[in-house]
């Protein structure tokens, strides 16, 4: 019984944060048709910026977090303008964008290693304290993380559904030509999507490192899990991605609780392999897998 509760609690925690990261990835895939392998390093940017602002500038925590998220968005913007825009519309987009984002991720991660060193950093928490329900330890910070993540997921969903620019972003991912004919400026829209996506990754970085830790290698695994979520939910589908995030989060928590931590990642991967073989479009995919 307690294991179940631990599973649900951890599952919701993971799912919320994965949702943030996966949402960014799926937005970029939907509009740019690009697999952003630098996403994990944007997570790092968020975390390290927050740590630096708190540690060096001693600004209040919440302000530091907000600045860090903005900083991640800025890095995403620079990456888009310098690396991605030159490749738009040229042949060999798949290769070139893959390599460009891989290059960017290496640069960011080695920069983090050079500047901050390989030791893990501990992020101070906004709220202190924890309590137990049975033997399950619940920290207040974790609850805050969940609340923040869920809040932003809801805000993003509303943005995409109701606002003019959210509508435009959805339009681009459904039919690029039609969107342009409706007057949506393609390059600007891509830039906005990248900034939003980077901000979401940065936010995930800030949130997760406040309850675990931060190291230069911290970005890779969340990004891979976000990729799993994105694929499972269907590339380009926002609703599917959010559902998938919590499903995967619960699955990982269950694997951890019942089989042990070392089984979590392999288990997830096995699940993904099986799922892609059986249902290549994911839950709500927009028909991208195209079987032979």
């Amino acid at each position, binding site marked *: 019984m307690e294991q179940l509760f631990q599973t649900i609690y951890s599952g919701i925690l993971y799912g919320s944060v994965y949702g943030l990261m996966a949402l960014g990835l799926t937005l970029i895939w939907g509009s740019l048709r690009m697999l952003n392998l630098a996403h994990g390093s944007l997570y790092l940017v968020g975390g390290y910026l927050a740590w630096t602002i708190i540690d060096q500038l001693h600004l209040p925590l919440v302000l530091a977090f907000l600045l860090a998220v903005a900083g991640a968005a800025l890095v995403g913007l620079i990456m888009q303008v310098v690396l991605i825009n030159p490749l738009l519309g040229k042949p060999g987009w798949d290769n070139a964008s893959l390599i460009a984002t891989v290059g960017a991720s290496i640069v960011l991660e080695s920069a983090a290693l050079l500047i901050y060193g390989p030791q893990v950093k501990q992020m101070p928490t906004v709220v202190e304290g924890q309590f137990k329900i049975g033997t399950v330890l619940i920290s207040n910070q974790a609850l805050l993380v969940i609340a923040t993540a869920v809040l932003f997921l809801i805000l993003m969903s509303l943005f995409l559904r109701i606002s*003019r620019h959210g*509508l435009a972003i*959805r339009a681009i991912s459904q039919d690029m030509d039609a969107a342009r004919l409706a007057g949506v400026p393609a390059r600007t829209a891509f830039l906005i999507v990248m900034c939003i996506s980077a901000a979401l990754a940065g936010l995930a970085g800030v949130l997760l490192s406040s309850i675990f830790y931060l190291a230069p290698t911290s970005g890779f695994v969340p990004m891979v899990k976000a990729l799993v979520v994105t694929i499972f939910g269907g590339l380009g589908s926002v609703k599917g991605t959010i559902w998938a995030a919590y499903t995967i989060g619960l699955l990982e928590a269950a694997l951890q609780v019942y089989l042990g931590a070392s089984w979590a990642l392999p288990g997830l991967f096995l699940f993904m392999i099986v799922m892609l073989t059986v249902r290549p479009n994911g839950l709500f995919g927009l028909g991208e897998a195209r079987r032979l």
Partner: protein
Amino acid sequence: MLQVHDLQAGYGGSQVLHSISLHVEDGEAVVILGPNGHGKTTLLRAISGLIHPTAGRVELNGRAITRLEPEAIVAAGIIHIPQGDLLFPEMTVMENLLMGAYRSAAWRERNNKLAQVFRLFPRLAERKNQLARSLSGGERRMLALGRGLMGEARLLMIDEPSLGLAPLVIEQVYETIHEIKRTGMALLLMDENANHITGLADRVYLLEAGVLVREGTADELLGDAALLSAYLG
């Protein structure tokens, strides 16, 4: 109003349009007839900015709009309703229409425009929360037209409004286009056959193999028996 001078355009290495010159005046309905694959769609795409012409000029009321990005052309008041509708499949009818008013000037007026469009297309009002991909062929065409109307255009360019529709539906579509013309909108229409353009078209061009081979008033061209037999389906 719209002046096209010696436009040349193509894809990759192949040139599709050879020195096209035409014009559309305020409130005029100009129809371009021609067989499929001869450049009609390319012409519209070159004007609306989806592709860039390799040579020639496009002017709107004296202002050069050649090689501008599509969003600038839309802002200038030219709206291209593409062949095959190109709807947003996962959006509702309402959302598709709202996208038509994306441009900030049009967005402010969107409620008025929506009322106008729903008046013109009551079927769309009935289905306003339905996903676009679940609509019938005729309804999609109406949605495409409605979306185009939402953009506060001065010139509507419509590519093959009769494509893939049953004869009865085509009649309705053209009736609506007549109504649109009556509001004073300038129209540039492309079609493969000439069945419905009597009474609608002020002038007609003939586009074959990327070249405008004939030009004249509707009466002139439609009085030509040889032409009629070639272009009436």
